[in-house]
């Protein structure tokens, strides 16, 4: 009954709009920007796939895709067409509905993240005053989709991959949020647009430790190497999407890169000054910075071996979490005691604190516990 009431109320309320309703153009504004955003994300993902494959090719002393179109630029398109035309295989003992639903649930939240990311001053779908909270809340929903995929596939590799992913996300969420809180303290706002506006000095300099923690935690959260345990191809074949093919696999593929782009965009926004920059138009600055961050992720992927699951947990709880707490404390003291300190002094102090902490902490910190007696 409650739902019917709600619908009726809604119909009634159309006649009498609430006083803070943003005007008659609201729906057009919403529709237009949503479509633009989805298109933007898709294009960015294609760019990301191209960059990843080409850059990895260069770093691994091979060519990378170079046959489709000039410099292989059409490779992502070819990939997309190929993957869409492929047969959709559902294993016999899969939980069919969950298996079908999982890619959708994983995909939707990633797009939603972009709703609050400013591409330019004020150019964002919704300028939420709790933008960061929204991002933190939304970004971990896709884990549900991943876990559904792993559970419903009826495959042990998938299940292992999904379990690993849940463990990783639950652990890394904490340092991730704590390192953002430092930024929020400095900026004094949770709205991403305001945070960008406050960055006369990019927060990577004011919050260097926070940046490192956020970067590591973000890599773990979106399962980029060296934390790509959930799809560790040498161990559990393809992890949670082992049993996916065709369009559903394409969705997961999309999620993977869209998440990477989303995290790069968030890092750009809250640490690298977002769309701010000289000469170039703001939106271009934003895209360039996003891709630079993404490139660093590609770089680590080609360079580092993968950590083990217990080492992954140890890194989160023994290293990143305490450091994030300390960082938060230090930032809070700085903001409270010297609110008007010269920013450059704070930069030097914070970089010094970061170096000292990282070296000190890594002294008495052991990565993982090794063998288990049976």
């Amino acid at each position: 009954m409650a739902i019917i009431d709600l619908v009726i109320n809604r119909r009634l309320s159309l006649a009498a709009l609430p006083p803070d309703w943003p005007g008659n153009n609201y729906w057009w504004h919403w529709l237009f920007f949503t479509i633009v955003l989805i298109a933007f994300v898709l294009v960015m993902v294609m760019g990301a796939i191209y960059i990843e494959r080409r850059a990895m090719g260069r770093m691994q002393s091979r060519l990378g895709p170079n046959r489709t179109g000039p410099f292989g630029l059409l490779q992502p398109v070819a990939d997309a067409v190929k993957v869409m035309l492929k047969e959709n295989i559902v294993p016999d003992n899969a939980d069919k509905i969950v298996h079908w639903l999982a890619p959708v649930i994983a995909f939707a939240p990633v797009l939603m993240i972009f709703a609050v990311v400013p591409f330019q001053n004020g150019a964002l779908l919704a300028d939420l005053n709790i933008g960061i909270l929204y991002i933190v809340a939304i970004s971990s929903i896709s884990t549900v989709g991943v876990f559904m995929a792993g559970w419903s596939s009826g495959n042990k590799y998938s299940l292992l991959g999904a379990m690993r992913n849940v463990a990783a996300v639950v652990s890394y969420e904490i340092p991730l949020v704590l390192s953002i809180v430092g930024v929020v303290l400095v900026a004094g706002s949770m709205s991403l647009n305001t945070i960008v506006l406050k960055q006369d000095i990019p927060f990577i300099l004011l919050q260097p430790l926070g940046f490192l923690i956020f970067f590591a935690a973000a890599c773990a959260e979106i399962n980029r190497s060296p934390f790509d345990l959930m799809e560790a191809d040498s161990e559990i074949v393809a992890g949670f999407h082992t049993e996916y093919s065709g369009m559903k696999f394409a969705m997961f593929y999309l999620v993977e890169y869209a998440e990477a782009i989303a995290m790069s965009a968030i890092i750009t926004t809250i640490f690298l000054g977002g769309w701010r920059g000289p000469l170039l138009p703001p939106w271009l600055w934003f895209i360039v910075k996003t891709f630079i961050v993404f490139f660093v992720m590609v770089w680590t992927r080609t360079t580092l071996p993968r950590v083990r699951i217990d080492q992954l947990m140890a890194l989160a709880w023994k290293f990143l979490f305490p450091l994030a707490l300390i960082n938060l404390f230090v930032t809070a003291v700085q903001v409270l005691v010297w609110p008007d300190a010269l920013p450059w002094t704070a930069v030097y102090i914070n970089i010094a604190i970061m170096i000292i902490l990282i070296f000190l902490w890594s002294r008495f910190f052991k990565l993982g516990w090794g063998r288990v007696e049976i």
Partner: protein
Amino acid sequence: MTTTQEMTLNTEPFVVNIGPVHPSTHGVFRMRCKLDGEVVIDIEPVFGYLHRGIEKLAEERTYTGFIPLTDRLDYISPMSNNLGYCLAVEKLAGIKVPERAEYIRVIMAELQRLANHCVAVGSMLNDAGAYFTPFMYTFRERERIIDLFDMVCGQRLTYNYMRIGGVSQDIPAEFLPALEKVVKRLTKFLKEYERLLKQNEILLARAKGVGILSKELAINCGISGPVARASGIKWDLRKADPYSIYDRFEFDIPTGENGDCYDRYRVRIEEMTQSLRIIEQASKQIPGGPIKADLPHIIYPPAGEVYAHIEAPKGELGFYIVSDNSIAPYRCHVRPTSLINLAALRQMVKGWKIADLILIFGSIDITMGEVDR
């Protein structure tokens, strides 16, 4: 009142088949793993997916006719297999190999060791999760060595180069300069590789202390080659039982201390350096002369039996041949390095995680062609 049994969750280990089709089982190997979450409780290796009955085929071929099949044993290092088999037949028939052929054989065998260790190290790191970068780097260098093999025998994978009493054809004039270039390149490459990975924090965390194989267990299981040497057994057939002309070269036997994955990785890298040393010496000393002993096409070795072994890249490769003075071996047994090196796998992986299982398995470096034969 509830008992504790009602309170605890009932858990049971679950069984995962890793292989025969899996990205990192190095062929068609299969492990039935019993897992408790991520922890490996027990494994049972299952073989036979690549069994071709090579030992039976040997009984139906002439002594020379079996050489191409030895290529298919350990297909990562066919030259060594050729050498091992030819040495066994020569020992059986008492054939003297010309000097030049001996030098060519040593150069080929050491190049093969380099190529094999390139694959071993690269794929081990790939198993550790370094996404194909070390793999591509080592394969790039292996490519140069394969080019050299291509130059001498026209093949890139199954060389079929050595013959009973020598080698099939002389090295071309441009081989030695090319070899010199490759040696220089590899020396540089090894340094670069060391710089990139020797102190890599994640590699240390993943490989140090993982999959320890004790010296006693290694001896008890008959484990040989780099795996045994990493456990601290200073045993290299090139020194312990010098075949061919290995007593003429100076080189060291690198050994490890702990017998963990990292030591196995280190020993392989060190061995590559030593191989380069041997190649440098051999290419300087190589004399002229014939490359093949004067033998009839079909040989009839005297009745008897013989066992000849060499230090193949993966360990002791031996051929046990029984002859009845006929055209073909009466019985030809291959000592399968890879199969015997797997004997301790179960103890090595117990209690480690799946990720370690893959890494430990990768660090043993097996070829299924040799395991199943």
